[in-house]
Every structure is written in structure tokens, then in C-alpha cells.
């Protein structure tokens, strides 16, 4: 553990140093934008390090550490040796700094005690991370969920946080990094529209306290990463960054999740509006384009490579870069309901928008990692932001209006392309950042606004102590458990002995079966009849399988196997043993 911890610290220091070195040649020379760029460059380096290690079959402590240090060596050889931070951190003021410290301490507590718990993370995000870590390489096996082949840019960052310790105790740090990026990008946007540093920091804090982002950060889901990268793209667009840097962040965003692409039309609108704006509004553009052209271009290519990797893999393995998406969308089994919508739906846009404005923005349910049936925007965005936005639009200059138009276009394009289901609102978690900037704008001129804003932030803090998916009893069990054994599997009675188990369901909590230290081998069973199921299990050296009551096809096979005396059930959960 100590060696893994040291390697993790060294590798993180190496990527931060490398990001600083790259910033030296590709930076915008605007402190607020450069902070965003620094975090994006760090994400690029981590993504590339894990991708290279995964492809070379050295995805373990020594291998990833070696890739990180080799990367630093390359930067050194290229003459990029200035690794010192070259911009001042934002001045938040004493009171806000205390609030940030409290929230940071709370996040650290959540990272330490929370474990992967959301259905999507357990079913298809994390099983592939577990397979990679166990094999020390990228694997063809990704699990049985229909979403398993989705782009996995965020999983690279999660793999980074588990590979050194070979344990998932701090896996949530990946999301916390993205929350930091969202805050930095909001700060940069607030600075761009003319807010002084302290008020821009307030905007960043209000945005970071968005409940959907707060709980999403520790949920092992990639939606906070998407929101952060949308905001980072907007920050680079308004700073007049060269196209190479925009390609960098677009590549990383598309590599995390296609819903990032859903927001791109609004970012293109913002870019076009900024291009048409008076040159005096963007004084740094010419200098930046001249200074950053070649390095930015190289970084753009690297970003597109890092993110495009998943689409190329799907094209090679499955014949389509967007596999399993087809003209009918992604269905829940043959002839089943649509899980992921294909293309735009105007009626869907109206339904989503009306539902968002009339119901979900009021967050009528407790917050959850998946933002089920809530917007997750929080009280500050709702009560203060919706009132502040028109005031800021009236009083601020054209930069704020352009930003608003871009954000509204992104909101509309995401709602146009997202299926109306229980969870669609988590795809627009970038939008509250605009409302946060508006709140800071209005509060700067009217300090009374700080009173309801503070109350709203307190409400957000209270509402995000724990996600709805984790019951109070389960949380108590997590706190009481030692970190090595910490998991929710026992709370759901998913308990088994041995070091290998079969998984026989189309979806569900497959990740728990690996155990937190990835010591258990999980074999995904694909048999369609009882005999072949038994043969598959024997060939893999398995005595036991785990299934779910909702997997009807598999349950039929198991029922047949039970009738024929091939399998017997082991209570209390749905475990079955070979006879």
C-alpha cells in the first residue's frame, strides 16, 4: 500500500508538472483561462498515460508510473522544462475560502467513505475498469450491459485513481477533479463577462455547489466530467483560444460521453458570436493565435486521438464507431423500449423543457447520484439564478448576452437529443453555471441578494450529505467498515466465498463481484441453454454464478437448469451452485 501510495503521488506530481510545462507553450496568458487549461492538460496526460499503458499491457503501478515518468522525459527532451506554476490562484476572500474549505473537507470525507453505488456505474462503467486492472491491460471483455461499449474517457481517469493502490477506495477522486474543472471554468467565464476576481470566485462556488454536480462528483458517473468539459470549452471559446486547443477539449469531451457532443451546437453558436464580436472585446486573440499555433495544434491532435480512441475501437471491433447505437436507438432487448434516443425529437424537446421548468427544477425528490426525477440544479440556481439571469442580461454588456445565447442553445440541443426519462436532466448540469454567474453579477450590485443565496447554498449542502441511493443504515455500515473491505455488496446481501464467480444477467451490479481490491475473477456467462451454461461454468473453473431477478431470459435458462438438477439455488440472494 505504501509503495502504491508513493507511486500515486509521484505520478500525479508528474502529470501536474507536465501540464505546467505544456501550459508554458500553449497557455493563453490569462490566469483564469490558464487554470482551466492546466486541468484540461492534466486530464489529457492522464488519459494518454492510461491508454498507452492499457495498450502495452502494463496497466499496473510500475507500468503507469513508468509511462508518466517517460512522458516527463519526453517533455524535458523537447525543452519543456519550466514546471513552475506561472499564474496566481484566484483571490476568493476569507469568508468564501472558509466555505470552500468546509465543502472540500466534506468531499474528502465522501471520497473516503463512499463506494461505487449507482446502477450505471456498477453495471457498465466500472466492470471494464475492473477488467483492465485485473488484466493490467485493455480487454475485449467489458461485461454484458448493452452500454458496455460506450466511450470510456472518464473510466481512464477512474482507472488512474485505482491502479496504484489496486483498490477503489479513492476512485471518486476522478469526479472531484472534474468538479474542480467545472468550478475553474465557471470562474473563467465569470471573469470574461466582467466580474472581479472575488465575485467570479463566488460564481464558481455557487456553480460547484450545484447538487447534481456535488453528488455526481462522487457517484462514479461521467456526467460531471461532461458538464465540466462543456464549461471548459465555453471558457476557451470566449478567451479566443486557437482551434487546436478547442479540438483538444472537444476530443476529450467526446471521449467521455456522446452527450458532450449534444451540447456542441450551443458552443459553436458561442464561438460564432465571439468571432463576430468587435475585436476590441477580444484583445488577446491575435497574440494567442500567433504564439500558440503549433503547440496548440499538436495538443488538439492528441486530444482527438485520446477521445477518438473509443470510436476507432468500436469501428474496428463492432463495425460502427457509435456501436451499439442504430437508427432505432438503443433498445432494452429486442423489441423492448428505447433506452437511448437516436437523433433529434422536437416533441421530446418540448416534453423535456416543460418537465424541467414545471417540475424537476423544484427538485421535488432527494438528490441522488443519477439525479433521478430532479433537475439537480439546486435552490441557488432556481430561487436566485432564475431571477438574477434577466437582471444580468439587462445590465451586463454583450459578452454576457452572447454567453447566455450559447448556453441556451446548448440546453436546447441537449434536450432535443436526450430521451425523456427519469435521468435526462443530468445531461444539462452545465447550465446552472450560467445562473451562478448571473447570481454573482446581481449580488455584486445588491448585497441583500447574498442572504437568500447563502440560505440556498446551505440547503444544497444539507441536501447533498448523502445520495438517496445509499440508505442511512448502509452509510453507517460503510463508515464502520475498514477501508479495505468497504463495499455496499454486503448491504444488498451479495455475499459469496471464493475468488471466482460467474455473472449471468444483462445488467446490474456486476462490479460488486470483483470486490474493492479486484481480488475476485468475474466471468460473464453468455449461454442460451442449461447445458451450455454448465459447460461454460466448468470451462471457466466456476462453482457458482450470480444473476438478477429482472433478467428474464437468463432466469428461464436457470429455471431449466434447476429442473434438470444442473444448478441449485443458494439463499439469500440469487446465487446458484453447480451440482
Amino acid at each position: 500500500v505504501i509503495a502504491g501510495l508513493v507511486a500515486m503521488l509521484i505520478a500525479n506530481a508528474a502529470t501536474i508538472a507536465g501540464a505546467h510545462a505544456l501550459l508554458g507553450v500553449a497557455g493563453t496568458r490569462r490566469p483564469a483561462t490558464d487554470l482551466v487549461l492546466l486541468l484540461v492538460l492534466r486530464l489529457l496526460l492522464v488519459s494518454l498515460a492510461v491508454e498507452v499503458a492499457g495498450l502495452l499491457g502494463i496497466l499496473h503501478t510500475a507500468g503507469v508510473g513508468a509511462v508518466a515518468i517517460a512522458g516527463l522525459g519526453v517533455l524535458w527532451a523537447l525543452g519543456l522544462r519550466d514546471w513552475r506554476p506561472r499564474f496566481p490562484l484566484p483571490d476568493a476572500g476569507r469568508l468564501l475560502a472558509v466555505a470552500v474549505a468546509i465543502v472540500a473537507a466534506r468531499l474528502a470525507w465522501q471520497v473516503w467513505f463512499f463506494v461505487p453505488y449507482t446502477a450505471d456505474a456498477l453495471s457498465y462503467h466500472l466492470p471494464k475498469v475492473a477488467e483492465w486492472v485485473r488484466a493490467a491491460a485493455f480487454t475485449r471483455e467489458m461485461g454484458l450491459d448493452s452500454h458496455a461499449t460506450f466511450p470510456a474517457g472518464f473510466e481512464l481517469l477512474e482507472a488512474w485513481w485505482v491502479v496504484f493502490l489496486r483498490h477503489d477506495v479513492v476512485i471518486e477522486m476522478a469526479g472531484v477533479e472534474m468538479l474542480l474543472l467545472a468550478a475553474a471554468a465557471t470562474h473563467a467565464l465569470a471573469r470574461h463577462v466582467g466580474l472581479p476576481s472575488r465575485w467570479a470566485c463566488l460564481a464558481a462556488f455557487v456553480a460547484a455547489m450545484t447538487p447534481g454536480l456535488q453528488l455526481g462528483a462522487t457517484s462514479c458517473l461521467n456526467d460531471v466530467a461532461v458538464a465540466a468539459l462543456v464549461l471548459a470549452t465555453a471558457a476557451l471559446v470566449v478567451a479566443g483560444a486557437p482551434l487546436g486547443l478547442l479540438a483538444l477539449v472537444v476530443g476529450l469531451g467526446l471521449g467521455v460521453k456522446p452527450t458532450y457532443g449534444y451540447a456542441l451546437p450551443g458552443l459553436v453558436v458561442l464561438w460564432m458570436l465571439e468571432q463576430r464580436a468587435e475585436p476590441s472585446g477580444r484583445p488577446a486573440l491575435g497574440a494567442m493565435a500567433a504564439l500558440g499555433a503549433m503547440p496548440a495544434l499538436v495538443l488538439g491532435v492528441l486530444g482527438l486521438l485520446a477521445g477518438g480512441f473509443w470510436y476507432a475501437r468500436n469501428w474496428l471491433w463492432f463495425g460502427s464507431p457509435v456501436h451499439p447505437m442504430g437508427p432505432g436507438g438503443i433498445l432494452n432487448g429486442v423489441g423492448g423500449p428505447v433506452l437511448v434516443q437516436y437523433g433529434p425529437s422536437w416533441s421530446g424537446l418540448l416534453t423535456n423543457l416543460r418537465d424541467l421548468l414545471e417540475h424537476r427544477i423544484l427538485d421535488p425528490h432527494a438528490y441522488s447520484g443519477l439525479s433521478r426525477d430532479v433537475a439537480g440544479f439546486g435552490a441557488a440556481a432556481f430561487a436566485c439564478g432564475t431571477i438574477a439571469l434577466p437582471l444580468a442580461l439587462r445590465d451586463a454588456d454583450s459578452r454576457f448576452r452572447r454567453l447566455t445565447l450559447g448556453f441556451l442553445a446548448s440546453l436546447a440541443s441537449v434536450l432535443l437529443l436526450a430521451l425523456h426519462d427519469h435521468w435526462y436532466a443530468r445531461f444539462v448540469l452545465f447550465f446552472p453555471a450560467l445562473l451562478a454567474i448571473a447570481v454573482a453579477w446581481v449580488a455584486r450590485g445588491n448585497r441583500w441578494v447574498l442572504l437568500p443565496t447563502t440560505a440556498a447554498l446551505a440547503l444544497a449542502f444539507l441536501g447533498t450529505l448523502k445520495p438517496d441511493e445509499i440508505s442511512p443504515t448502509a452509510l453507517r455500515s460503510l463508515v464502520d467498515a475498514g477501508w479495505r473491505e468497504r463495499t455496499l455488496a454486503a448491504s444488498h446481501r451479495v455475499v459469496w466465498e471464493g475468488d471466482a464467480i460467474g455473472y449471468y444477467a444483462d445488467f446490474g451490479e456486476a462490479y460488486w463481484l470483483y470486490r474493492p481490491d479486484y481480488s475476485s475473477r468475474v466471468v460473464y456467462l453468455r449461454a442460451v441453454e442449461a447445458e451450455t451454461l454448465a459447460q461454460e461454468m466448468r470451462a471457466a473453473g466456476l462453482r457458482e454464478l450470480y444473476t438478477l431477478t429482472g433478467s428474464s431470459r437468463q432466469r428461464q435458462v436457470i429455471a431449466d437448469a434447476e429442473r434438470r438438477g444442473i444448478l441449485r439455488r443458494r439463499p439469500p440472494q440469487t446465487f446458484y451452485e453447480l451440482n
Partner: protein
Amino acid sequence: MAIPARADVVGVLIGCGVLAWRATVDPAGLWHDWPAIAALYWIVVVRSASPRAERLLTPAVMTYLLVLFARGHLPAVWRSYGWMP
């Protein structure tokens, strides 16, 4: 601060449009309907053009919306935390 006349008219028209929309679709009643409250606030603020009224009315309306929000949200949080059956 001076508000251009055209913005004044457009602002009021948007506010009235929102009110008309809410009058046709919302069964919950005016005082529970946040878009209607926001529209009314906006019409009053733009029409009054009084910095003092705006200074007090803005945090007041924000607080009202906050209470509206908390009434629906907090019981769900208490239930989730096991502090309420």
C-alpha cells in the same frame, strides 16, 4: 440606471407572455407557480424602474422562491435521511 424604451417594452411583453402561458397551463395556483411569480416580478421591476424597489424586491422574491423550493424538497430529504417516516 436608464433602461432603453425598446427593452422596457420587450421585457414587459415577455413577462405578459409567460403569465398568459401559465394562465392556460398551470392548475397549481398563482402563488405556487414560479414562472408566473418571476414574470410578475419582472414586469414590476421593469415598469417601476426604481432602483430602491428593485433592491428590496429582488432578494424578497428570491427568498419567496426559496421557501417554495424548500417546501417541496426538504421533506424528501428528511425522508431520505431517515429523519421522517
